[in-house]
């Protein structure tokens, strides 16, 4: 096993992507993601790869489309406003069944918003990553180690299901350094074959076509239904979540990404006071880990959702629990990071039988 090194999340993800066989990166700088692109600019040419800073995010995502169509293990990264610009291209890649890795190191929005950590692009990632009837797989790291580990996973899932995959991080995870054990480099010969790719063959086989345009309604419906079978397989096989102290938990926090770290600390503080708190950390946001949530219902009295947003993932918690338990909410947004103590106060109030729907504006308006 290789030794532990100190790296920023952005850099660890970049290095891990190269080790996972990524040799093509197209992007455009934006805080708080820029170290990822800068790392690629430095390292990829030395690996015989291609780093290209495009003239815009729109251009970058269409370059990703082209490289993916040619069968390359390819990625792009950006931060919230830049992802909005890439949405058209992501939709085209969904329609053309092309695997690629898209990293969103989220910052505050809407608009140019701010540059501090945020989770306000959850709806965009899981509900409307582009126009049309489609989804992408969305993974949510919570540590620098996971930033690194998810690179190879994202490429594998993308190839297996022929879909774009997003790693949905945030400014905290991108900017912080933690010890990380980098994955061993993959051998390029071990990457999966892509018989559908446009590789040039001198008429040795049937032509491959990469396309998202289906003018005959029946053909479009057929293509979407075929894709939905893959989505169903993804929902059955690829739900991922981490549970912490949930076996006997009466009060279950649901949080992903950087917020889950804070929630874990809050659980420890609450346990020290005799409050039976636990944590479910969704690792796959699409597919949402419905099963993991439902497994905790028997002992749970109430759930507490916390995000860096006004409440987006909370919708999926409510859908998963289908009204069987109360779902409470506490958040900050705009780049303010909640403290473990704030979540502890919320857990105390739940344990006292209160219900909570707390966002900062309520206390300010009060």
């Amino acid at each position: 096993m290789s030794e532990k090194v100190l790296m920023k999340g952005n850099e660890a993800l970049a290095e891990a992507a190269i080790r996972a066989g990524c040799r093509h990166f197209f992007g455009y700088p934006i805080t708080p993601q820029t170290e990822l692109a800068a790392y690629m600019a430095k390292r990829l040419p030395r690996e015989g790869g291609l780093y290209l800073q495009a003239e815009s995010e729109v251009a970058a995502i269409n370059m990703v489309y082209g490289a993916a169509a040619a069968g390359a293990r390819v990625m792009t990264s950006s931060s919230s406003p830049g992802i909005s610009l890439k949405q058209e291209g992501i939709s085209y890649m969904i329609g053309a069944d092309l695997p690629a890795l898209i990293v969103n190191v989220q910052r505050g929005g809407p608009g140019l918003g701010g540059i501090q950590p945020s989770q306000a692009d959850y709806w965009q990632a899981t509900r409307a990553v582009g126009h049309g009837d489609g989804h992408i797989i969305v993974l949510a790291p919570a540590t620098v180690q996971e930033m690194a580990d998810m690179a190879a996973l994202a490429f594998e899932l993308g190839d297996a299901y022929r879909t774009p995959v997003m790693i949905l991080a945030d400014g905290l995870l991108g900017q912080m350094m933690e010890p990380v054990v980098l994955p061993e480099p993959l051998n390029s010969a071990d990457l999966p074959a892509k018989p559908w790719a446009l590789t040039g063959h001198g008429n040795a086989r049937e032509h491959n076509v990469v396309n998202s345009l289906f003018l005959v309604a029946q053909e479009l419906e057929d293509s979407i239904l075929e894709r939905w079978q893959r989505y169903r397989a993804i929902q059955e096989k690829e739900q991922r979540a981490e549970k912490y102290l949930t076996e006997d938990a009466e009060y279950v926090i649901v949080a992903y990404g950087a917020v889950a770290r804070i929630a874990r600390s809050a659980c420890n503080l609450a346990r020290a006071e005799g409050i039976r708190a636990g944590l479910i950390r969704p690792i796959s946001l699409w597919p949402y880990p419905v099963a993991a949530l439902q497994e905790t219902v028997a002992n749970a009295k109430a759930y507490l959702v916390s995000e860096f947003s006004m409440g987006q993932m909370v919708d999926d918690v409510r859908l998963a629990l289908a009204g069987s338990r109360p779902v409470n909410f506490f958040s900050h947004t705009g780049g303010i990071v909640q403290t473990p103590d704030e979540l502890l106060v919320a857990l105390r109030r739940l344990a006292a039988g209160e219900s909570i729907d707390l966002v900062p504006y309520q206390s300010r308006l009060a």
Partner: protein
Amino acid sequence: MEMNIMLAGFGGQGILFAGKLIAYAGLLDGRELSWLPSYGPEMRGGTANCSVCLSDEPIGSPLVTAPDALLAMNVPSFDRFINDVVPSGVVIVDKTMANVCPTRADIRFCGVPATQLAEENGLKGLANVILVGTLLKMTGFSTIETLNAAIDKSVPPRKQELVASNKKALAIGFDFVPADDCLATSA
């Protein structure tokens, strides 16, 4: 032992590097740790700060809001963070840059003329490492051996000539004997 450290000063004083040294010491000690720089508008205004957490448990929030130790290299940083420090927390200030005295009685304060000491010893630009030495002495967050190894690790290969001067700066801060020039004002 859990230790949350806030380091703050002007851009160029080596705040992020000082944080990195502490983080590397944590890595070498086999501990859980996180290092988080400020990257917001305050950075563009010329100030820099950096959160470092050392723990034996997985780190929750990497953002230090209630530091066990504050290392401040200018007056704005001292003013901004002094009231966030936990009771009995440690506050170390570069006295050359911030001639301040403790505004609280419930902290352990140490003023080090770090910039002046650095210049007197031919260590220009290493006031940050001197202060890390004092922090080590006052809190025992690691050992001098580990910190020396952390210097070996975090000085880039093309700047190897700086290893010895960094180690010297660390020793100066570690051996610094505080002169209580604040006692008169706080008494």
